[in-house]
């Protein structure tokens, strides 16, 4: 038996042992999991395709398409339209945006036509739905916003329906992100440096980082650079660490911090 074969045999033995242990101990789950509700669609007598809807109740048999076949785009659009109609019939009061009407510059005080958006009335999920009651919906705070701002306000699903509290939360999360960047910027270890140098030693308050000038041709690199290229250059050289990956949370946070320090500065890409 050569050494290589011995090694191979040894490894096989080890692996089978580990596998055995895993089998002997495995099926007990480490966490108690609750079964998620599943939508069991009724089977078609003719073997047609049956499509279920996300409410967990409604389903539709697609005539002329067998189970396992693919729907064309036209067929799929027809199916989803039919399902949506069925759902609306069941839930006449549900909060659902109608196809948006042409936008008015100023919404009239009293809408004279069309349904109010979101429709008035108590918002209740359909009976038996798996949707949890409460929590944030598209309408959360929407009424409050109208009260705060008076009624002469346009509706809007994403930005129109948030309160000043929501906005405070956004601002706080942004600050938190910036603060994390401040921490990394001032911490040689967090930067992965090996010579105890941190960014703030040369750039107090991120001075002289001039993020507003990027992208620009960085003559020493011989190519066009972004702010993050220079951050990484500094990490590699004076800081003597390993450059961070593009998605590294530390790099993202530092970018946030550096930009935050230059609030109000005119963007001037390419500036020498």
């Amino acid at each position: 038996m050569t050494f290589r074969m011995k090694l191979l045999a040894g490894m096989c033995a080890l692996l089978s042992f580990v596998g055995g242990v895993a089998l002997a101990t495995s099926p007990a789950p480490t966490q108690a999991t609750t079964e998620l509700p599943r939508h069991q669609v009724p089977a078609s007598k003719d073997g047609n395709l049956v499509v279920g809807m996300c409410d967990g109740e409604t389903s539709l048999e697609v005539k002329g398409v067998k189970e396992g076949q693919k729907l064309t785009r036209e067929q799929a659009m027809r199916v989803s339209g039919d399902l949506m109609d069925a759902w609306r019939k069941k839930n006449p009061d549900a909060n659902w945006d109608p196809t948006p009407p042409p936008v008015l510059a100023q919404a009239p005080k009293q809408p004279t036509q069309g349904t109010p958006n979101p429709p008035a009335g108590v918002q209740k999920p359909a009976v038996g739905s798996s949707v949890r009651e409460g929590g944030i919906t598209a309408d959360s705070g929407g009424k409050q916003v109208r009260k705060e701002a008076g009624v002469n306000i346009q509706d809007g699903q994403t930005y129109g329906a948030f309160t000043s509290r929501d906005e405070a939360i956004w601002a706080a999360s942004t600050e938190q992100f910036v603060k994390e960047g401040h921490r990394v910027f001032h911490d040689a270890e967090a930067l992965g440096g090996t010579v105890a140098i941190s960014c703030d030693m040369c750039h107090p308050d991120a001075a002289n980082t001039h993020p507003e000038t990027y992208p620009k041709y960085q003559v020493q690199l011989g190519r066009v650079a972004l702010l993050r290229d220079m951050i990484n250059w500094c990490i590699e050289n004076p800081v003597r660490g390993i450059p961070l990956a593009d998605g590294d949370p530390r790099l993202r946070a530092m970018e946030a911090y550096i930009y935050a320090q230059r609030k109000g500065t005119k963007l001037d890409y390419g500036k020498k």
Partner: protein
Amino acid sequence: MGNKFRSIETKHHEERDAFFEQLQRLDRRAFLRVAGISAGIAAGMGLRTPHGFQLVNVAEAQGTKPRFSFAYISDTHLYEQKLNDRFVRSILKAVDDVNGLDPQPDFVLFGGDLAQLGQAGELKLGAQILKSVKAPVRMMVGEHDWFLDMGELWRDLFGAPNYAFDHKGVHFVVLNSIHEKDFWTERKLSPMERMKIVAGLDNGIQSRFEVGNEQREWMRQDLAKVDKKTPIIVFSHSPLYKYYRPWNFWTDDADEVQALLRPFERVTVIHGHTHQMLSNQIGNISFHGMLSTAWPWPYAPEGLPKLTVQMNRPDPFSQFDGCGDGRMEVTEAGLVNKLYNLWERNPITVRASYLTSNGKQDAPPQTKLPSY
């Protein structure tokens, strides 16, 4: 395979090497020709070369002849060598510079912040390196040397942080301007936490620098013995005026200290801490900043003195750019011409006449790329 891109530094050094190679091939006559041409070019660019190279200036105004000179090394911010050799290389370069000066300076001022975090290994390393300076060394303390053990080891190594001496008719006062009001006891900070807070510029936690009552009283008594016509040169680590408070480019009782200096005819303050070319004139007092060997600081977003000619933006791709050391030439009149020996750049002199004429005479070369 090689990188085709050559940096500015590489090109500069290649040109320089080529130049010196050619020089070696010259005979005497050709040498004189080259020397004449290069001197002419230097004069044309308005450059003032260091003393050893200085062309004889026949029309020297009275009192501007040099009386003596001293050199400086400042803000070396040493870590222990096994942690960081970069800053060690820099101080060694500065020591080579001052040892290479011809004529030798009468003494070398060390401008403070020898250590980065006031630790024994850092201060002792610095003390060891400074022993190889040929000229006598005059020490000044910086906040990075002080706030770990409140100056205990520094005093053991170098003696009292504030003292006065006379040299060739000039009265020198060395201050410890980096006292801070207690911000640590209430916060229950460890000595190292206190040190690290002081070591950062951009935190609002630490107090502002001050010379303090006790030391001002000492200074008042010391200056009482000095004739008002005697030129005074003060060394302080922080600038003895109010430049930019958020970064502690600042001395809180600067006005009081300046008041003590007002009765004298000729006063110059030489300070460290700001790591940049920095000039100011307040009444009878001229101020000169010193360069760091470790890194340059950016210019503060506000409060920059009007007379300051900014140094061109440092190139982060060069370890030494924006750093350096320098020399002060004390004139017969007792004023100071300050030479910034910027590494890898032409030296720049900020002359006493520039400051005392409020910028009307002898302006140093202008900034090409000022701060963002």
